[in-house]
Structure formats: structure tokens, C-alpha cells
């Protein structure tokens, strides 16, 4: 793995992106360093999904630069993706495979072959019940699928973790377990970027929060002290514009 300038793992500089005449990112800039958890907070249409797509190399920005662990996802998609573990909001896994088979298959595609015990340990860490490990995903709830996806992302052991609405579908205990896991990943040196519209979840987990509105960061807040964030202040910032729509 390689770092971008100043030890940043995710670098987004003045990125503009339009779909036809509709501009979705208008000068977006954000940096996430190794070991840092950054929450991108925004409402519907703020540009959260487009930011993810640009980081994953599915769209090419009209202007500006994007780098993930030193690679440009638009021109070096395979190299950039090899550095990323991604958990989408609507987890897409294979219903015809069991939880274990899903993990083994997707990890093998990523070139990783963890021991079965490592997969079990990851499932255990996400709080997925053991009885579900050998069941096909056809009957899994959204939360259970989320846990499988998170376990797979953890097992990737890559320098960048992208999370799209990660707490959506998780119960409070699972959310707490998940937050702990993300902290573990960050402590091991990964840069974590999560997009969410869940202010409390972001406040709970992030080191920094960026407020995304109409395709650019309009404000930022950093965790400080034991209380980390002044939630009242966050709420004021979040609802100041149209971002919470």
C-alpha cells in the first residue's frame, strides 16, 4: 500500500462531477488520513453516493483529483479498488451461497484466502449468530446481511474502508459492536470514510464530520475531548442548510 502526500489515504481535491446538465459535486474537497474515521454527513441529493462512486472508480470527475492510497480510481480502478473494502447501504451478496461461502468467494475474488477460523472470528466479531454461518443468505434480514458484508470488509485488511450508511438496518447492540469494530480497523491504520445521514451515528464513531451540501463540504467538525462532539452544535450545523431534507 502507498500513501498520498502528507500521509493521507483518501484525497479528494476540488472535484466537480455532473450527470448531463445536473451537477452533483461542485468543488468537493476532503482528506482522510491513515487511522482516521471521517463521516460525510448529508441529506438526499447532497452528493454522498456520487462521492462513493468517484472513490470506487465508477465515475470519472469532470475536474479535480481523487486519490485512494496513492491511486487514481478513474484511471487505475483495479489498483485503487484493491486498496478498498466497501460496505454499501443495500448489501449485495449472493442468496444461493451461505454466509461462509459468500465470505470465501468474495475474498477469493479479491485475492485473499483467509483460514476458516478467521472467517468465523470475523462473523463472531460482527455479532452474527453462529447458527447463521452455514445458512444461505436467501432468508437473512437486512441486518444479518450487513454483518456478513462488514465481516468480509474486515477480512480484506486493506488501508481504506468505505461505508455507505453502515448502521442502517442494525439494531442498537449490533450498531455498538459495529462501531467498536470500525475503531479497531482504524486503530490498525486504515482510513475510514463513511457516508451517512444519521447524525448520532456519525457523532458516535467519527473523528471528523464533514457536512455535505449540494456537492461540497460546507462545514466540518472534529472530535474533541471525552465528549467528542457537541451534538447540539452538530444538529444546528446539520439543519442549518437544506442538507437534512
Amino acid at each position, binding site marked *: 500500500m502507498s500513501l498520498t502526500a502528507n500521509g493521507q489515504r483518501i484525497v479528494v481535491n476540488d472535484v466537480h462531477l455532473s450527470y448531463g446538465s445536473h451537477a452533483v459535486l461542485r468543488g468537493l474537497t476532503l482528506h482522510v488520513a491513515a487511522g482516521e474515521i471521517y463521516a460525510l454527513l448529508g441529506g438526499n441529493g447532497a452528493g454522498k453516493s456520487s462521492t462513493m*462512486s468517484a472513490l*470506487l472508480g*465508477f*465515475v470519472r470527475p469532470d475536474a479535480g483529483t481523487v486519490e485512494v492510497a496513492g491511486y487514481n480510481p478513474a484511471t487505475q*480502478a*483495479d489498483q485503487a*479498488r*484493491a486498496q*478498498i473494502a*466497501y460496505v*454499501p447501504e*443495500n448489501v*449485495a*451478496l*449472493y442468496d*444461493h*451461497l451461505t454466509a461462509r461461502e459468500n465470505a470465501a*468467494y*468474495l*475474498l*477469493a*475474488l*479479491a*485475492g485473499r484466502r483467509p483460514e476458516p477460523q478467521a472467517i468465523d472470528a470475523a462473523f463472531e466479531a460482527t455479532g452474527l449468530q453462529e447458527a447463521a454461518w452455514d445458512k444461505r443468505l436467501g432468508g437473512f434480514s437486512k441486518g444479518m446481511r450487513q454483518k456478513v458484508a462488514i465481516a468480509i470488509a474486515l477480512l480484506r485488511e486493506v488501508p481504506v474502508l468505505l461505508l455507505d450508511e453502515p448502521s442502517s438496518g442494525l439494531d442498537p447492540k449490533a450498531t455498538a459492536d459495529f462501531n467498536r469494530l470500525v475503531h479497531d480497523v482504524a486503530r490498525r491504520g486504515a482510513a475510514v470514510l463513511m457516508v451517512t445521514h444519521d447524525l448520532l451515528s456519525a457523532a458516535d464513531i467519527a473523528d471528523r464530520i464533514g457536512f455535505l451540501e449540494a456537492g461540497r463540504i460546507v462545514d466540518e467538525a472534529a472530535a474533541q475531548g471525552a465528549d467528542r462532539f457537541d451534538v447540539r452544535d452538530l444538529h444546528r450545523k446539520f439543519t442549518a442548510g437544506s442538507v437534512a431534507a
Partner: protein
Amino acid sequence: MSAISLIARDELRLMRRNRVAVVAFALLVLLTLAAAFISWSHQRAIAETRARFQAQAAKEFEAQPDRHPHRMVHYGNFIFRPLGPLAAFDPGVDAYTGNSMFLEGHRQNTANFGDVRQSSLLIRFGQLTPAFVLQVIAPLLLIFLGYGAVARERERGTLRQMLVQGVSARQLVAGKLLALAAVAALIGLPAMIAFLLIAGQPDALAGPMAVIALGYAAYLALWAVIVILVSAMMRRGRDALLALLALWAVLVILVPRVAPDIAANAHALPTRLETDIAIQEDLRRLGDSHNPDDPFFTAFKQKMLRQYGVSRVEDLPVNYKGLLAVEGEKLTSRLFDNYADRSFAVQAAQSGLMNGFGMISPTVALRRLSMAAAGTDLDGHHRFLEQAEAYRFAMVQQLNQLQADAVTYADDVAQDAGADTRKRISADHWQAVPEFRFQPAPASDLLRASLPGLLLLLVWLAIAALALIPIARHVQKARR
């Protein structure tokens, strides 16, 4: 294990775990085996029947009593077209063209008793042969098993997940194709085993068999590529299925059914009645050997008298009526040959146009290859007709020559009470008439005839495979 084999293995695992796919696959294998067995037993029964009737016809011809040779010319002989071993795999046009002929003097009869004239109308919709199963049913199964291969990944969001794992769209498409190609091979395998069993007889031709195997392999591979192409182009599996079913209906059903009608309209054959009337008119123009004033036969008579140095036909050392019969048969045969050549030329033009449809439908190209290599195409039928005519002409002329040599002119024209007995010659002569032996086309001819179809199929396959490259780029851009 590479990403391609991982993806292929997972696609096969998905099919294995899909009960509908397993049942459909098992049904196709059963259908192929049933088709192979039915076709083999049907063709064996046909071959035995034809051999039995051929032997019976020869026996009855040889068992005729002492007779005037010209009576034997009209008694005639039946011949049957024996089937080659590959006909059990692809009977081609045999069921439609007729397979037996009555050979007699003064006329060329057409082949009779095609299976379609003896069976119910159902046979017109395609016989259940291994060739039919592979040409028509196998692509349908590949469509049902593979339509969602890429479209499903896009529809359910797993495509993006795979790409994020570092899998390239090219690897994804290649893996899916590998899985479907493996299924295609499994589909083709029972048919190929049956093909070897039913066709692998001592007189089977290795070259044409190899071309048939290669052609069907290319055809199934082509369908696997087409299915993956359409699946990769469409956003939803349902759209891919509809598009593929429409494509199947056009390429496999519509074009092969409509093409012969278009060819027949473009190069129309005269009706049987029109041909018969035209032949009768031409025959009248040739002359009448019984008319003493007929200019042609008067000239012929003078020529014979000059040739033998006599002034009356009664003084000829040979029977003049026999000479007349030999000459008359030569004339009528030439006339019939002209009509047959014209008919063959029109049919060849129809075939040429029909083969051109192989550029629109790979099924047409495969049929051309399959029937040509099996020797059951129109050329094979023409080969039978040509050999039958050559045999008929030789047999009739042998009998006419017997009339000229073994029956005196005086006896031949005599009307007295004992004349009928004197006109007869020994029945031993009938045994001297050789039996009809159909000479099938040599392997080199079959190969030459089947190569254009094979080439066309390979071009289809190459174009479809090349189309996968831009389609893979299209998949790579998956945003959702």
C-alpha cells in the same frame, strides 16, 4: 485459482443449486438420449426395410420367366436408396425427397415414399433426432440457464460488489462465459457420445464425423457467447430473457423456415404437370418410330442399312426393332437428362440462396454443414438420382441390346400362333443384369460440401467473441 475460474465455478454452483435449472438440464440430456435412440432405431428399421425390399425387387426381377426383352424393359425394377451411418444423426432431406424409385424404359420416374408422405403431419415440424435437439432445443436451454449471468449481477447490485473486489469486467464476462461454455459442452456431450455410437460403424467416415462434431461445438459455443453478450448488455435479467427468446425465435425457427420459401419463390421450379406436358411436346417433336414417314427415323433406318450394307431391314444381321429401341431410349434419356439438369440447376440456385441465409442465421449454416457432412443434403439426393438414372439407362439398353441380338426381326414382327414363344428369350439373361449398388459420396466430397457451413459458423463465433470486448467495457462502467 484465477478470478475467471472462481466466477465460473460459482455460476455453475448457482445452476446446480437451482432446481429448475437442474431439472431442465436433466430433461435435455434425457431428450438427447431418447432422440439418439429413436433416431438410431428408426434409421436401422428404414435401412433394414430398404435392404429387404431391394433384395425382394432384385429376386422378383431375376425370377421372371422367359420373356421378350422389351417386356422386361416395361416390367422395370425397383431401387432403394440405402442410408449412410451418419443419417441416424441427421437424416436431412431424406424424409422429404423420397427414397425409392421405379425404373423402366422410356421414362424417368421421380423418387417416392418420403417419410413425410407416410407419416402424420407432425413430422413436418421436425423429427426428433440428435441434430434437431442440438440445433433447436439446446440453445433454448442455454438461454434459460444463462440469461441472467451478468444481468442478474447488475440487477442485484453484486456486479458493483465484484468490481470493488478487484475483479475486472473482462474477467467477470470471461468467467460467466466459461461456465456457460462448460454447460454447453455438457449438453453436447451425450449427443456426441450417441453420435459416436450410432455413427461409429465400420463404414463411417472419420473426416465428416469430425466436421460435424466441430460444427456443433462451434454452434453451442456461439450460443453461449450470444447469451452472455445479451445478458451483459441488458440492465435486467427479464429484458435479457425476452431479447434472447426473440433472437432464438428469429434465428432458429423463423429464418430456417422462411428461407426455403424465399428461395423457392426466387428460383421457381415448374410444376410436375407443366414438366410432363413440356416433355410430351418434346417427345412428339423427336419423332415417331412407328411412322414410316417420320424424317428422323427414316434417316436412322437408312443409316443402319448403309452401315450393314443391306437394302432391307429384314436383311440386317441384328433385329432392327432392337436397334430402334436402343436409339429411341438414347433420345428420350437425353431429353429427360436435359429436364433433370434444368431442375437440378434451379434446385442448386435455391440451395445457394438458402445457404446465403447462413449469414443471417447460424442455424441455417449449421444445417448446411450437418446435412452435407452426413451426406443427407440435396446433393446427396441428386447423387442418388444420377446413379439411379445411370443404372436405369444401362439396364434398359442392356435389355434393348438383347432384343437386337437375341430376337430375330422376323420373329419380332411375326403375328402367327407360335410367334409369342419364339420372341421370348431365356430367363438366364435377367440374372446377367447387375443389381443397383448406390455409391455414397467419398469423404473428401462430404468434407468439401460441409466446409462453407463450418467456415460461416466460425465467422459467426469470431464476430460474437469480438463483440464481447466493447460489451465488457460497458459492464465496467456499472454505476449501480
